[in-house]
């Protein structure tokens, strides 16, 4: 090392200038609860089970989503539509129970791709944190949308295979 390098002072001053530059730089931190980050249009978050325009559930419990799921997070029990339930379910068969284990789900979106009835979609909502494992198994009460609070899935439809007719 030369004498200039041996006295270290120029190097230390150089280092301090670097840290000063960082000190004066604007922060890029997003303070989460107050500010939220803009999600990408193709973001895959919590699932929703859609209803059609008349409020009937799209899902027919065909089981394709459960088969497609690589994490085996989806379980369902099918049931036959009774007389007088036509306003609830679109076709003769429906899922009496539909559960997604959010701890197993990897949010790959294969269930959405497999669905022939446009029933299951991934949305830009974040799965809530919980303290108990049981709470992460989302049943129909949490997955099916209500008519007065419909979930917008148009962003996912345009990225999927089929577009709305």
């Amino acid at each position: 090392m030369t004498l200039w390098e041996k006295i270290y002072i120029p190097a230390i001053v150089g280092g301090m200038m670097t840290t000063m530059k960082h000190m004066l730089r604007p922060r890029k931190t997003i303070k989460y609860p107050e500010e939220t980050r803009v999600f990408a249009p193709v973001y895959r978050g919590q699932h929703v089970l859609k209803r059609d325009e008349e409020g009937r559930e799209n899902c027919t419990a065909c089981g394709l989503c459960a088969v497609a799921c690589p994490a085996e997070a989806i379980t369902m029990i099918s049931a036959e539509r009774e007389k007088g339930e036509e306003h609830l379910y679109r076709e003769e068969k429906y899922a009496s129970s539909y559960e997604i284990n959010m701890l197993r789900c990897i949010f790959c979106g294969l269930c959405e791709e497999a669905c022939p009835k446009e029933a299951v979609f991934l949305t830009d909502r974040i799965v809530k944190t919980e303290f108990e494992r049981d709470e992460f198994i989302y049943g129909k009460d949490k997955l099916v949308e209500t008519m007065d609070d419909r979930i917008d899935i148009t962003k996912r439809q345009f990225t999927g295979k089929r577009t709305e007719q």
Partner: protein
Amino acid sequence: MLIEKSVLVILLFLISLGVAAYQTYFERKLAAWIQDRVGPDRAGPFGILQPIADGVKMFLKEDFIPAKADKWLFIIGPGISMFTALITSSVIPWGTNLNLFGRDISLQVADFNIGILFVFGVVSIGVYGIMIGGWASNNKYSLYGAIRASSQMISYELAMGISAITIVMMSGSLSLNDIVKSQHGMNWNIFYQPVAFFIFFITSMAELNRAPFDLPECESELIGGYHTEYSSMKLGLYLFSEYTSMFVSSAIMAILFFGGYNFPGMDAFSGNLLAILSIAAFALKIFLFIFVIMWIRWTIPRFRFDQLMHLGWKVLIPAAIVNMLITGLVIAWNEGWM
């Protein structure tokens, strides 16, 4: 007389503790800014209540004393550290005289004629706090930390003392009050003694056990060094005493080299206005020193132990001695002794 000194002592005690508390906040903020983070910002606006939250947390922790530790020495250790850190501020002249209720009040608790010697003596006792705490813990990491602290203190105190002697030679007095008065206005010692300042600055960082000289407590090698076994407010006292010493030694550096409470154009003011402005000037200098010490901490990595000893004995002490000799020759020449 007694009353005004007592008020001053209590005020200084509270200010030292308050400044130390907010130094922890400032240090965390500064570290965050340097690392492109935000830092503590949840407790109160901009997180300014964070030191209080930290203090409460410290108090609520379990106060644990290891079974094989020397109980009394274990308790005395942090006490000595805190005591020596606080008592040094008694000889510091904080500003020009304040005129209140028709009395001229000196803003210095004790105007010793050996002020700077007192500071060095007390700072040397400070190492006992670390030594005793580290030894009494009955833990090899603590002992290593304590040994490192003492050898580092002894090595760096020499260079520190020699560089302070050059200032004493120039002002002709050991009293901090006289040293400050000799630097009236902008006639600061830094312009005559840049080398001495440089050595003093480096050695005081070593005396403070601050990075890059924080070997006694380096967490990557020694877990926590001398305070590995400490918890609760005893640990808090160690950390607090480090910050208090940082405040006091920034003040000492400002006094010895940057004119203490003097500021350019101070002759235009007089009375209480001058006193308040001088206190503000002194506080600003102290703040700048604290800022630079923290800035260095978050920039430079820690020295290795042999590098530390090399720097102390082979670089700083010879440089300080040569600087002292040159100063002596110049003074002798100016006084016509040669």
